[in-house]
């Protein structure tokens, strides 16, 4: 376990550092890089909601919490309210017996 953490740390430090050492990049590349953050954030939400076994999303307390976060974000609620709202909805549903 210690070796795995050490390996991941070294690789991650190398990845982050290597990116920064590249000199000026062309505008075309910079424009494409602008697509990274939205693509990854959307994918991270999906990965978080997907079942570990089959990779498909399913309706549960966690998904309801994320749904609440989407609604809160859509009505321009403050950032922390979106996050806390999502957690509270998930916790509340679980307390009520929803898995």
């Amino acid at each position, binding site marked *: 376990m210690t070796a795995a953490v050490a390996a991941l740390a070294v690789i991650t430090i190398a990845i982050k550092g290597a990116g920064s050492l590249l000199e000026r990049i062309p505008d075309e590349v910079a424009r494409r890089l*602008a697509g990274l953050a939205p693509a990854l*954030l959307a994918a991270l939400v999906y990965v978080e909601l997907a079942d570990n076994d089959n990779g*498909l999303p399913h309706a549960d307390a966690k998904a309801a919490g994320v749904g609440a976060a989407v609604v809160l974000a859509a009505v321009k609620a403050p950032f922390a309210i979106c996050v806390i709202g*999502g957690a509270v909805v*998930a916790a509340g549903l679980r307390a009520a017996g929803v898995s």
Partner: protein
Amino acid sequence: MIPVVAAVSIFGVSYGVLATAAGMPAWLTVVMSATVFAGSSQFAAVSILASGGSPAAAVLSGALLNSRYLATGTAVARVLPGGRVKRFLLAQLVVDESYVLAVNAGTPEAPDAKTLITSGAALWTGWLAGSAIGALLGPVLGDPDKLGLDAAFPALFVALLWPMLDRRPAIRAALAGLAAAAVLLPFTSPGVALAGAAVAGLAVMRK
């Protein structure tokens, strides 16, 4: 920035709780946060180790999850100050949240370096402190799912993503990333699905 740091600190607590619950020693949990400093890859690696996966699979998944930071690092390279060593070190402060804050403070083509460095340092401190608290609280706190901490993570990503969706190319990239993840995840690891989403996001950004 403060709400983001607060949210990441809370996730640090949930990471500390989850990692120690999965059998990771408290000291290693904290050292991992200090050195890897990439929440999603830490969660992924810990969950693989916890479910009996090989250390190699945990490292590979974590590394693929972090492969996006090569591109993110390049995206911030031209705004980071100083020589190679200084930029190499400052680039360690790049995480999804600090990158997004820097893009929001500047532009996607030229993220704001000061925001990146300030928020990155604050996020690292919060993530580390949260992890330490979580590692200590772990045995006391009980089930993090009961507190909805697991839902707070995707809720954070939603809250970060939403303000970006005011431009058509960003919406296209988000949909491409979502589609890539949905197609890949049933067949691959989360790390591969996220790398695929990164490629999809790059691919759809035309003129």
